[in-house]
């Protein structure tokens, strides 16, 4: 590559290789074009998703105004006329995501700090791959675990009628987002320059003070990215919540109520919806709201990171 782009070194060996050079150039072009196409494809797919969500989802607002759709507390697709209020799903999603984040972030960051700063290298080298394997467990399996192990426990702990509730789902989701939070924050903590840590220790700071006051602040952008990935996972997860959240249609009043998240609502009702019918449109509109929600999370994360970087870099 350097040879083909560096015309200032015409050595004897290069003279007869004109054809080769041209071929290399061509090869490079092909690769460049390939990468460009891949990038273009990603954008096209994204635009396609937005287009379909808008095309299929927006017509529902001809029957239900956006306000009633977002804040309506009843979801009666089969009534006449049908009623589409997604507040139960919206509240469920927000509640479950929030709780799972509140559980997963401290545990995940503490775990990452332990792995990167405290654990002997051997322990870290064994534990990290195990955590990464955890990330590959299919969500159906996590659903089983939630059903069989966690829900009875939650039920007896809070004296509930059923252990299938928001809290159970949130705990399972926190377990599912843990691997990515641990893995990404560990990388960020590991990348904190040694000089910072040495300076801290040399001033008489303890290990925990160094982690808390030096390593975590210096790795904050990476940790924030890790948290956002975790949140993204929690918002988008479908199968596990479908299996363990309880699928109630009322607006949940407490975390231990049975719930239906937006993703679960989509999965639950898409099978019964007539293609192009009002319910079908309403389901796509839920997808649209979900999309806006995740987009919002990402934009906020981006802003936070940007500000953080500006504050520290210079």
């Amino acid at each position, binding site marked *: 590559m350097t040879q083909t782009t560096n015309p200032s070194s015409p050595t004897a060996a290069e003279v007869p290789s004109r054809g080769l050079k041209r071929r290399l150039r061509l090869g490079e072009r092909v690769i460049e074009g390939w990468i460009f196409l891949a990038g273009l494809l990603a954008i096209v797919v994204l635009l396609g998703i937005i287009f379909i969500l808008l095309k299929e989802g927006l017509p529902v607002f001809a029957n239900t105004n956006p306000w009633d759709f977002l804040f309506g507390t009843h979801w009666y697709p089969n009534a006449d006329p049908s009623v589409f209020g997604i507040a139960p799903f919206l509240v469920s999603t927000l509640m479950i995501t929030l709780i799972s984040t509140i559980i997963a972030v401290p545990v995940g960051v503490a775990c990452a700090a332990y792995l990167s700063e405290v654990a*002997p*290298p051997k322990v870290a080298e064994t534990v990290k791959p195990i955590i990464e394997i955890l990330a590959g467990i299919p969500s159906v399996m996590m659903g089983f675990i939630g059903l069989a192990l966690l829900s009875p426990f939650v039920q007896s702990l809070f004296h509930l009628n059923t252990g299938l509730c928001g809290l159970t789902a949130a705990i399972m989701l926190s377990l599912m987002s843990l691997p990515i939070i641990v893995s990404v924050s560990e990388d960020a903590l590991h990348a904190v*320059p040694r*000089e*910072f840590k*040495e*300076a*801290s*220790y*040399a*001033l*008489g*700071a*303890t290990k925990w*003070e160094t982690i808390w*006051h*030096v390593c975590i*602040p*210096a790795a904050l952008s990476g940790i924030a990215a890790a948290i956002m990935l975790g949140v993204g996972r929690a918002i988008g997860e479908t199968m596990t919540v479908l299996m363990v959240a309880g699928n109630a249609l009322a607006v949940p009043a407490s975390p231990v109520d049975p719930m239906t998240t937006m993703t679960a609502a989509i999965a639950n009702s898409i099978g019964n919806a007539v293609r192009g019918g009002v319910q079908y449109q309403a389901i796509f509109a839920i997808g649209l709201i979900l999309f806006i929600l995740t987009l919002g999370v990402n934009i906020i994360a981006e802003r936070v990171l940007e500000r953080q970087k500006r*504050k*520290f*870099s*210079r």
Partner: protein
Amino acid sequence: MSINLNVPEMSNKPIDKCVTKLKVENASLYYGSFQALRKITLEIPSCAITAIIGPSGCGKSTLLRLFNRMNDLISGVKVEGNVELDGISIYDSKIDVTELRKRVGMVFQKPNPFPMSVTENVAFGPKRHGVKNRGELDEIVEKSLKQAALWDEVKDKLGQSGLALSGGQQQRLCIARVLAVEPEVILMDEPCSALDPVATLKIEDLMRNLAADYTIIIVTHNMQQAARVSDTAAFMMMESDRAGVLVEYGPTAQLFTNPKDKRTEDYITGRFG
């Protein structure tokens, strides 16, 4: 024999009035199976600047880090022998290492301010050692920055990142950060090697000013610097197995102009050219 250096005045400060601040007896240090220091014995006087010189890799930094137990952070390090601060063995199991490091501060080769504001950099140490009151912290920050001859240059940008300062300012910020925890000893590991000549002279002036109140040990590659700033000097070398040994130790004026050991003489004449 006598060596002629073009360093204007070398310290002839009598060091016999000082007390022994740090004492090293037969200290050896191993990185795993590699012996980096062999049977080092020396006494560092309290009211002086001690320079440690010697070729690269001879264990100068390792010796320096012996005094604040920074070598503890490296896994597989083993220390033999005895190191005392004010007559108390610092490798004793009862020693609180954080307290030791508060008393024995360190400035590193590459300026390493935290990615925080100037104020927060200086306040970092005091905060860790229990100072919470904002007013008190601000006072410490101002005092330390003045002591480090940095106050006038940064007093209008205390909220800016420490990383936004110039290299020399960053190093003085690091010195202020150490001064803020009120240490007794300051270890400096080639503190000027990343700085330009003007910044270097500023740091040297600063060291001379601090020498009245602190025990200072400086590792340096720069012979002129050692001759300029130090009162006592130690010359280290590697033996054939690369273990570092102390060849000669004495008043700077004597070590540089009238060394007792042939190896010292060779090194110094070689380095001064």
